[in-house]
């Protein structure tokens, strides 16, 4: 497929463009590690107050946050910069993207690939490995697959959220940071055990929008714990399905959005 070379060329161009400003690239790379680190530190601080929160120990909570962080970091690294779409729409630069023989989403992702977020991925993976070691996990082939699939499914899920919230810009150019409340808010939600949330909030976010299946349910399955909320054990293995549904919805929203693109006068 010749198209892959086209995408490869875009990626190469992005790497060369970014590295043409070397010093600022290094600074951004390092400052980005900080933000993922902070998410994990928040969990540590919370558990410093009480050793057990919502029936979960510190080690268990770190497993949840690391699964969430891995998935999110992967999504943020690949499609996170799609939130730049609003700039492309507002300035009409999307025109130049639309006249090229490659997929619009693919081009936007590769043209803006946030290489500076690369180290976050490494940090998330490191914490995940540590969390797997401090928890006593009875390894079975099923759980090995689960621990590999969960971050990937999480990445697809968060990627879909990124694309959907970015698509707001097609209808509403001044969408500003509203999209971020779903992406970053969603990540924060998945960083904690679901029983910490209550009532309608839990019902809507954890089960209605599917955030509960990204890290919390798979962590329960890995630990062999029963869900205090009462979902059956199979819920731990549903993340790929939830991710696929989210991806399907995101693709439909994106396609409808493109047809609503209005460009700008020139």
């Amino acid at each position, binding site marked *: 497929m010749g198209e892959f070379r086209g995408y490869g060329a*875009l990626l*190469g161009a992005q790497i060369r463009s970014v590295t*043409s400003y070397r010093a600022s690239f290094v600074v951004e790379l390092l400052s980005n590690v900080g933000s993922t680190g902070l998410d994990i530190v928040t969990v540590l601080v919370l558990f410093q107050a009480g050793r057990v929160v919502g029936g979960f120990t510190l080690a268990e909570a770190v497993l949840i946050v690391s699964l969430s962080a891995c998935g999110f970091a992967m999504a943020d690294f690949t499609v996170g910069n799609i939130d730049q779409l609003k700039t492309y729409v507002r300035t009409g630069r999307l025109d130049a993207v639309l*006249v090229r023989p490659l997929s619009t989403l693919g081009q936007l992702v590769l043209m803006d690939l946030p290489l500076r977020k690369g180290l976050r991925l490494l940090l998330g993976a490191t914490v995940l490995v540590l969390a797997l070691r401090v928890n006593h996990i009875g390894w079975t082939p099923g759980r090995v697959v689960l621990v590999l699939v969960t971050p990937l499914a999480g990445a697809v899920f968060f990627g879909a959220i990124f694309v959907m919230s970015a698509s707001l810009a097609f209808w509403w150019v001044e969408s500003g940071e509203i999209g971020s409340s779903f992406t970053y808010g969603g990540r924060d939600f998945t960083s904690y055990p679901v029983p910490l949330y209550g009532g309608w909030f839990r019902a809507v976010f954890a089960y209605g929008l599917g955030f509960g299946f990204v890290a919390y349910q798979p962590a329960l399955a890995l630990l062999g714990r029963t869900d205090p909320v009462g979902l059956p054990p199979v819920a731990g293995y549903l993340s790929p399905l939830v991710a696929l549904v989210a991806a399907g919805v995101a693709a439909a929203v994106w396609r409808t959005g493109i047809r*609503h*693109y*209005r460009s700008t*006068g*020139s």
Partner: protein
Amino acid sequence: MTIIEMRDLRKDFTVRVRAGRLRRAKRTVSAVDGIDLAIRAGEMVGYIGPNGAGKSTTLKMLTGVLTPSSGHVAVCGLSPVPQRTKLALRIGVVFGQRSQLWWDLPLHESFALLRHIYRVPAADHAARLRRCVDLLDLGPFLDIPVRQLSLGQRMRGELTAALLHGPEVLFLDEPTIGLDVVSKQAVRSFLAELGASGDVTLVLTTHDLADIERLCRRLVVIDHGRVVHDGTIEDLHARYGSRRSLVVDLDSPLAPDFTLPGATVTTVSADRYRATFALDSVSASAAVARLMAVTAVRDLSLVEPDIEDVVRRLYAAT
């Protein structure tokens, strides 16, 4: 062979206008209001109209950027929006204000990237690039990052970028806007040569009527989203009664009751030593001969009708 076809093509935009402190009223504006147009392969078509007439909107519907509100549009036999990527391989687009080049990379790297994006065989790419480098004199700045190029240099780069995949149709949105006289000339001669080869269909929008006079045999004038003229420049002059003018300097003041059969006096200088005649139904030589017979002419010149003037009248009339 028809390569571009539009039938009753429309594009409506809803705009929100302030109607009071907080309320906003919705209003529908037709940017393109029912255009019918067919362009044959190899034609060079100039697309002109005042600001906001719908030129760019039409071009964006032809290139798959905007989805039409209604009507039929086909380019190279393809439907632009549903078959966007397929069409992109067969057309070239230069939007004066939207760069196709990589801002931080040297010009030649942008060209190399485009080869991969458009999947062009290396030999074809090299041959086309060599031709563009020669004709547009790109050699001196191929190694300079695009962000450091002058507008004229960048525009020559954009033209090259749009042609490297050998498009069948080239769309140009204001290709000479903001360029100095020399760069304008370079771009025009390049496009003239390209058009003369007949391999490429050229559609260009412009505000600079010199572009049209130099390049396009066919002129489409659009206003308020509709075609108000479609034909040659000569057709336009004939339709709006533009006439050639004869300007004469005389040895003695022109008599107040002077008449020249078949021509009208349009202006006379204050001292009446210089007069301009619009030639209605008389040839220039006959007019000159008659003038010389009755008065002493020191100098004379013949002025071709001014297209700017015609277009100004055309815009005002609609």
